[in-house]
């Protein structure tokens, strides 16, 4: 166990500290000085403070790259994890900026602080390889997200969503904790690498039970089938920015840690999910839930009439694709997974941003509310076009390259025998199906005639700018993915 003194520790966790400090600053400023101001001003000020905090943290990480592994893996910092943390910070900033125009709550400071707390917990989560700290960060994240989901006190849906989220989440956390404790029992260590070293018998039933339970816990986090039931309701009920955060950063963090736990922690017990080459282990388990997620997510999305629920099921489907990156547990597949999940997160934030504007100006998020949007808000519609097509996997957008890279890395894992080809085929075919429901949204926007009393919509300027920025980013990352690839390595 490598220990460091507090000053050193402080230096290592400075980014997280800055974020927490920003959260506290937001809270104090809002509670002390801004109570009388208009909601939008309060939001603006709080957003500015939060963004400054995040920026400072990000810049700090860029300027002072670290490499450390301390306290039994509780804090493992490498350039790659720092890049992931920067990505999380960027996503938090985007969500915060998109929430500026929200009208659902008077508790501005609390809301943004919670977002920042969630971000900080995610930052801890991705830089940890110790099951104890993983669990703590996971719980911190989950608690923040539960509250964020419930924040719209005027909406029954929001409360219902949060309740479901909380109950599901609590149970899954229990599973995860139980599994992790079994793991501790088996290996007498909380550090992932030491755990892997300690596993002597990969076919130990106890180990197997532990694996399954851990998978349940993390599967819930990434909304994989059959642990996905919370997702549609939460996506539908939570306020848009909360949903955006849940759908984006939490997914990023969730997948990163899922990967680490499985690949590093259960390193000897992979087994094999190769076609006709089943070997007992966690790989076939994850392969199965990946396949189920891809199929179920895409097929159920077809019949959705609410865009939010559609995005939820599509999230489940995308989660399935991303699980493939864990199935083929190579460093290249981790890079591909990172690329995919980061671009996916950005796109989802954008999609939710559009939904927020539509809900605000038109009144709902049903497909029919989007009718004729291209004539009413051309720029907004174009952004949505980019997001939907990227999610569908149409080149030259980021979503396509993500899929391509991910599938290639999955196949490369078994390059000679192409054993995982069946998963890739399933993924590509399901991806084809997904085009149908993304086109449904675009059909409403571009083709359906406008409703009778529909005039042009003025998108708020901040939202418009952010959405255009994200759309631009998606296009650029699709055309020149090297930028992100190199950056994430």
């Amino acid at each position: 166990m490598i220990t460091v003194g507090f000053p050193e520790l402080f230096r290592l966790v400075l980014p997280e500290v800055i974020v927490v400090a920003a959260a506290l600053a937001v809270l104090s400023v809002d509670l002390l000085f801004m109570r009388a101001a208009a909601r939008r001003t309060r939001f603006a000020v709080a957003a500015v403070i939060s963004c400054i905090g995040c920026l400072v943290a990000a810049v700090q990480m860029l300027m002072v790259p670290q490499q450390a592994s301390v306290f039994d893996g509780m804090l493992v910092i490498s350039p790659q994890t720092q890049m992931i943390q920067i990505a999380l910070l960027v996503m938090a900033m985007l969500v915060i900026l998109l929430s500026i125009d929200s009208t659902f709550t008077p508790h501005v400071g609390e809301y943004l602080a919670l977002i920042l707390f969630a971000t900080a917990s995610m930052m801890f989560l991705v830089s940890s390889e110790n099951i104890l700290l993983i669990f703590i960060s996971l719980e911190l994240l989950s608690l923040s997200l539960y509250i964020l989901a419930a924040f719209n006190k005027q909406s029954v849906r929001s409360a219902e969503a949060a309740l479901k989220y909380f109950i599901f989440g609590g149970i899954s956390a229990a599973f995860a904790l139980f599994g992790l404790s079994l793991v501790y029992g088996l290996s007498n260590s909380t550090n992932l690498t030491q755990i892997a070293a300690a596993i002597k018998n990969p076919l130990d039933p106890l180990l197997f039970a532990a694996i399954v339970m851990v998978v349940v816990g993390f599967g819930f986090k990434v909304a994989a089938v059959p642990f996905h039931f919370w997702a549609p309701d939460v996506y539908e009920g939570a306020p848009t920015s909360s949903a955006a955060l849940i759908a984006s950063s939490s997914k990023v963090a969730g997948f990163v840690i899922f990967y680490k736990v499985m690949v590093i922690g259960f390193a000897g017990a992979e087994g094999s999910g190769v076609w006709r080459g089943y070997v007992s282990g966690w790989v076939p388990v994850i392969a199965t839930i990946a396949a189920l997620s891809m199929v179920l997510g895409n097929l159920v999305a077809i019949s959705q009439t609410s865009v939010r629920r559609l995005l939820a099921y599509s999230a489940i489907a995308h989660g399935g694709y991303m699980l493939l990156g864990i199935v083929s547990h190579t460093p290249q597949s981790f890079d591909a997974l990172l690329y995919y999940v980061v671009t996916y997160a950005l796109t989802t934030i954008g999609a939710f941003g559009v939904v927020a504007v539509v809900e605000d100006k038109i009144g709902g998020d049903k497909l029919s509310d989007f009718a004729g949007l291209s004539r009413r808000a051309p720029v907004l519609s174009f952004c949505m076009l980019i997001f939907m097509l990227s999610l569908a996997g149409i080149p030259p957008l980021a979503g396509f390259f993500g899929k391509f890279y991910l599938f290639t890395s999955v196949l490369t894992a078994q390059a000679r025998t192409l054993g995982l080809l069946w998963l890739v085929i399933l993924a590509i075919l399901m991806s084809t199906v997904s085009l149908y429901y993304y086109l449904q949204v675009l059909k409403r926007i571009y083709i359906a005639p406008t409703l009778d009393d529909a005039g042009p919509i003025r998108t708020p300027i901040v939202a418009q700018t952010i959405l255009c920025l994200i759309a631009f980013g998606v296009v650029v990352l699709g055309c020149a993915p090297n930028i992100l690839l190199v950056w994430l390595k």
Partner: protein
Amino acid sequence: MLAWTIYISFLAVPVLLLPMVSVRASRIIALLTAMAGLGVTLVVFAHQQSGEMMTVTRVAWIPTLGLEYHLAADGISLSLLLLTGIVAVAGILFSWNIEHRAKEFFALYLALIGGVYGVFLSFDLFLLFVFYEIAIIPKYFLIAIWGSTNREYAAMKLALYSFAGSALVLIGLIAAYVVAGAKTMNLVELAQYPFPVHFQMWTFPLVFIGFAVLAGMWPFHTWAPTGHVAAPTAASMLLAGVVMKLGAYGCLRVAMTLFPRGLDAWGFHVLGFGSWRDVFALLAVIGIVYGAMVALVQKDFKFVVGYSSVSHMGFVLLGLMTLSQIGLSGAVLQMFSHGILAGLLFAVVGRMVYDRTHTRDLAALEKMSLYKLIPFAAATFVIASMASIGLPGFSGFVAELQVLMGAWRAFPPYMICAGVGVVIGVAYTWRAMQKAFFGEAEPGSLHTLPPISTPERIGAIMLIAVSLIIGLYPQLLLNLVVPALNSPLFDGLRKGSWQ
């Protein structure tokens, strides 16, 4: 320089969408863009002495994966680029009268053209795939917004079929990429890589079918008649004229070049088939005859032309499967010829007839005596029909002749069926021409129709002239295509069952 065809087309898209551009200006911008693309292609065409491959641009794109931005053209690509340019210009001329959301129409049209140019110019398979998929979305919107019968269903069907086909292609490409060491997607290098034979035996049909879906191979052709009928004229011209050729081009350029051993004999026989070559040749011939027979009984004028496209593309696929130089060059020539003629036929049916009479029902048209009301359209259709039957003097003759000759050497019975298909082709073309244009109206029931406008005339004459020129002097294209077929790229194809 050829890369400019892509760039100009894509650059025009945001220009067209600027709010300050009027509808009139947008037409002119679109026309100038298309003409510029055609001009560039013609200049390169004129300078090109042989069909050897010439690299246009080659830069590293995603070094991590070994993917390059590699544009190049050989004789085959150049012929198809020329086709695209011509049909693009003609399509814009025939869309001159569009008023509803005209700017978006031209923007989507040019985006589609840009994607198509990109496919024909790509020599890196990843890039080819990217452009191939880019072309799908503009097609969807073009049909769904400006189409006619059943347009939303037709557009979705087309988009999903194309996407499914490209999904199959993607599986094959990724598999090939990984097996070859995940270092490069360059066409030339992958063509030289010795993929294991059993590997090629399943990737070849996968990729071939994936592309053949877009080429309208039976039985994956059902999107084509629905799609063509629903699409607005310029889109059907592009769809039948160029986009279906994308599929056939992919079959030749990707499937047959990368996995030539997939065409070899299996060593055993199943239902009389001994290799994928036999299977696809049969499917091609079925397409020829089925398309022709179904066209014969159609009541809707545009459906006749739609099914005739399926029938003619069957010739292309049959030519590809003959695995002989004459058959393959016939296939490429047929791609060019049918592209021009399909464009012309759809232009007459859609723009000249339907836009004026608002009906495509042959029985209704028969009562209108269109040859008296719009004689130019009647004359154009007659000439186009003669050409599409394969009358010597027009481009179709040499193409079909070469395909038939190649087929005779490889599959004599199929050649006879294809010949029967040609004869049925005469019949359905004849029937459509008679009914649509030369019916006799009840006396006194004739009303006037708007005359054929100048852009339509220019477009029609342009297409007829091209078909005539290539028909009378096919060496213009054959000089490019035949050396391209002899290039080292097709070495793998020339072993095995090459005739």
